[in-house]
Every structure is written in C-alpha cells, then in structure tokens.
C-alpha cells in the first residue's frame, strides 16, 4: 500500500538536491489545456510530456507546463516549445506518440520536427 511514509522518504531524498522549480529549465514545453485542447486530447499529450521528460532524464533542463487557449483551436492539441534565443516552435494536432518523438528528436536532439509544426500546416 502507498503510504505517507513514502512521501517522507521522497522529502528526505530531495533534501540534498536543489529542488527544481518552474522556470528553471532552459526549455519550456507548454501544453494548451483549455476546453478546446482538452476536448481534442491534450490530457494524454500532457502526460506523455511529463512522463517522457522525466524518464529521459531531461527534467533539469525541460519544464512542462499548461496554459489556456492559444487561439488556434482547430489545431488542438497544441504544444509550444520555448527555448532561450530561439524562435518559438508550435506543434499542432499532437498525440502521445508525436510527443515521444518531439522529446527524442527536439528536446534531446535539438532537431525541430517541421512536419508537426503550425508553420508547415499553414505553408
């Protein structure tokens, strides 16, 4: 059974680490979680990013957060990737599978997946 004692152990483990807070990452992944995004499937996309970023050991440089309606509801689920000194990348019609690819190629490898971006859709 899960117990509060396990949380105490997490606290103990974290004591010697610098606790990562929102905004400390070099890369910010923002998932649109308004009515339009949620209805289009943003929840599993958010989960995929939260889990994937942690499992791939990217948590110290990537933060995953949520936002409201980005204004392009027809392209939801929408995910924006912000990186210092780089242009914002807007991924559209995201799925957990595409999220895994973005983590691997873009967040890890630094390679934007052009096919999934809004730029491509509007071109």
């Amino acid at each position: 059974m899960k117990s509060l004692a396990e949380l105490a152990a997490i606290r103990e483990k974290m004591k010697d680490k610098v606790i990562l807070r929102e905004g400390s990452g070099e890369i910010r992944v923002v998932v649109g979680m308004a009515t339009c995004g949620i209805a289009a499937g943003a929840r599993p996309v958010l989960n995929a990013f939260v889990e994937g970023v942690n499992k791939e050991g990217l948590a110290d440089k990537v933060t995953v957060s949520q936002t409201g309606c980005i204004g392009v509801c027809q392209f939801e689920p929408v995910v924006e990737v912000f990186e210092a000194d780089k242009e914002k990348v807007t991924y559209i019609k995201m799925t957990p599978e595409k999220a895994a690819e973005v983590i691997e190629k873009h967040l890890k490898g630094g390679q934007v997946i052009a096919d999934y971006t809004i730029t491509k859709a509007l071109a």
Partner: protein
Amino acid sequence: MKELSLNILDIAQNSVKAGATLVEIQLTETAETLTIRIVDNGCGMTAAQVESVMDPFFTTRTTRSVGLGVPLLKLAAEQTGGSVEIASSAEAADHGTAVTALFYKNHIDFTPLGDIISTVTALIQGAPGIDWRFVHSRGGDAVTLDTRELRAVLGDVPLDQYDVMQWIGDYLREGYEALPACE
C-alpha cells in the same frame, strides 16, 4: 467530451483561474446516479456571470473570458435526464463557486467517467501551489486524496515533483482497486 473526467478537468481549471487556494472535487455514486461537485474558494461570480456561463450564446459578452466548458458539462448531464447547478458568491466574506452536476448513469447517453486519475494528476501538475481535495464515494466506501495532508509530510518539496506525482497516481490507482464496484 469523450469522458466526464475531461469535463471535470476543464471545469476545475476555472477554479484555478478564479484564484482558488483550495479546490474540492467530489464524486458521489449511487446505483442510479453520479453527482459531480466542484467547489472552490476562488473569487466567485455575480448572479449575472453565473447566468452567462450557463448559456454563453445568449449573452452580450464582449470578451472571450467565458467559454463552452459549463455548457458542455450541462449538455452531458441533461442528456441523461440530469442537471447542472451553480452556486456562487463574489462577497468578500464567503467568496467561491460550487458547480454540481447530476447524471443518471443508466441512461443510454451517459458519458463514462473515464480516466479520472489522469484528470487529478493533470490538475495538480498544472497548479501545484494550491490545495486539492478529491473524494470519490461509492457503495459506502471512498477514494480520498487531500494535498494538505501530503504537504504536511512533504514540507518544501513541491507537489509537481515527479516522484510525488507518481506517488499520487499510484495512490489513487490503489484506492480504486479497493473501491467496490457499483452495479
């Protein structure tokens, strides 16, 4: 929405936007009904605002601050013969909002609850600085999560720390395994 848990995720975001410091999500099931209550201590709404979130197409709103969230919940409830009620106060002394939705589970148009655990974890991940209380009661038993209790043990460790998020997910999954099924 394909799952009621998605409506809950959507509606509870409004509580976060209203500046709530505590949001309670209560699911209560009987053999025939499911009642979803989302109660917050946010800034609340005036009677006119409550009216407008219920029926946004009949307002003269000039901003996009009111959306389709509540109407979608209302549709999901009413298509089972149920209803949605909103009680809200913007008074300084007791501000907050309570959204109550009643569903008849045996109606052919009842939308399944779906992945409620993902909704709870997504809400906590999105607003780890406020407190969340989740209670799902069924058949005399309940799954309960109160982040105030977690915080008392965690101290400075934020709720959105990945180990903590995983613990919350596992804790809820275990709770649901022990919860008796409802016919």
